């Protein structure tokens, strides 16, 4: 049984079909990159995975559970913008990752101090300890995204969804964010879905690269058909497939 199961998903807005017949499965710990033309429904697919919207048809299950009806703790998300809370300091944003699930959304007394200590450890790890008391608006784009990822991970989601998280960053910052994300992933081993417009990034980070496109196109009514997954590349081993031998072949190979 795979971890994430997407079964025959359709999403239409009014009579505009956005995505159709999307089927896929992902194992726990897999990193799935999603690419495709602008407006083809990648963010829509992510919203469906998040359960922010419910599909017109089909269902999405995570770990075999019933399809979720609203966003919850098991799925984390980082958007391109507006992912952190502007009215909280950097430290408070991290603490929020733990405290929001409590009845008042905040910790008191000893629990508060402990959470702040943990938040400071997280901040040290994501390299934001020197700005812990500043508001997000004073941070650079890369720092804000690092904060957003750190905050999402503090809630320990089982699936992390990233919608063009590094879209607005310069190439240098982007590279260091890649390292950062790969480190975090090696540590937590969680399942990641990442939408990106950068093919190189998609193949570098992903175990798989899904391509969304419209396979059918009605010239009289472009809205009639939606996009679906047209390619599902194996992106492990630098995108060169069949590098890992699955069968027990009795042939000697380098360990």
């Amino acid at each position, binding site marked *: 049984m795979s971890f994430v199961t997407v079964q025959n998903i359709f999403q239409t807005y009014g009579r505009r079909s956005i995505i159709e017949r999307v089927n896929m499965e992902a194992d726990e710990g897999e990193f799935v990159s999603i690419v495709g033309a602008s407006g083809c429904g990648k963010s829509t697919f992510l919203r469906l995975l998040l359960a922010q919207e419910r599909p017109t048809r089909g269902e999405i299950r995570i770990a075999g559970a019933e399809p979720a009806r609203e966003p919850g703790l098991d799925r984390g*998300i980082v958007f391109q*913008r507006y992912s952190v809370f502007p009215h909280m300091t950097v430290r408070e944003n991290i603490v929020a*990752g733990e405290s*929001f699930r409590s*009845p008042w959304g905040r910790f008191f007394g000893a629990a508060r101090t402990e959470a702040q200590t943990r938040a400071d450890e997280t901040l040290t790890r994501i390299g934001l300890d020197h700005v812990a008391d500043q508001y997000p608006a004073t941070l650079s784009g890369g720092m804000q995204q690092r904060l957003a990822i750190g905050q999402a991970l503090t*809630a320990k989601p089982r699936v992390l969804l990233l919608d063009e998280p590094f879209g607005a960053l310069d190439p240098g910052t982007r590279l260091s964010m890649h390292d950062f994300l790969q480190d975090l992933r090696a540590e937590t081993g969680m399942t990641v879905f990442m939408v990106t417009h950068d093919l190189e990034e998609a193949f570098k980070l992903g175990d798989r690269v899904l391509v969304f496109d419209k396979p059918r196109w009605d010239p009289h009514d472009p809205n009639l058909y939606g996009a679906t997954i047209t390619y599902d590349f194996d992106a492990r081993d630098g995108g060169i497939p069949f590098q890992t031998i699955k069968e027990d072949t009795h042939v000697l190979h380098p360990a």
Partner: protein
Amino acid sequence: MRLINIKPSRPLAVFLMLLPFAAVVVAYAIGSEIRLAANPSDKLLPAPSTVWDTAVRLITEADRRSGRILFWHDTWASLQRLALGIGISAFIGLVFGLAIGLLPLMRSFLAQFVAVLSMIPPLALLPILFIVFGLGELSKVVLIVVGTLPFLIRDLSQRVIEVPQEMIVKAQTLGASSWVIALRVALPQLMPRLILAVRLSLGPAWLFLIAAEAIASDLGLGYRIFLVRRYLAMDVILTYVIWITLLAFLIDWALRWLSRRFFPWAEEGL
């Protein structure tokens, strides 16, 4: 250079700022001079020095009959009504703004109703308020609330709806309940907007206050103005008008300071 690109230097900016104030004072002085030259007992435009003397007398000398300095009693009574009215209005506006902005159920239930309510001219309700709540303090406070509340609710619920959907979704992925989202995400982001909305409501609030005081009261800035109107005491009226303007300006300034001091993360407005 294009006009849109010409920015005043600091001294020029200060000069330009003071210019209209000075112009009004000078224009008044000249007008008063001309009228007094024609008729020394003219009451319409008392000389600036007369207004000043009256102001000093009003502020410092006690009323002969009651032994109180009425100026300060008027001020206190009016400010109390204003603060109470605006305070109640702001609180109710905040609660309903949050509820309507965050909860689709409440939006379907109340949004249109509030939109229709806001179309009622509050002053037209004043007689009803006097009948229902009597001529005392209550009806004046209620008029301010009735007059400012629909705007506050509509403005604040709109601001809540404008909170980026991403943040609301993000909070849900951190496990926040509707209550926590209201308390920790929407409310803090609403506070600077509340202060702004209150600043914008203060104009109407003063209007309703003075109208209510003019009609039925025995104390208050508006009451005094309409009382001395009978004797054409322009010097007293002018003193009170300038004082009300100054108070309104100071309150506005204090609220802006409050907003900057406590919500430094919010971008600055005017």
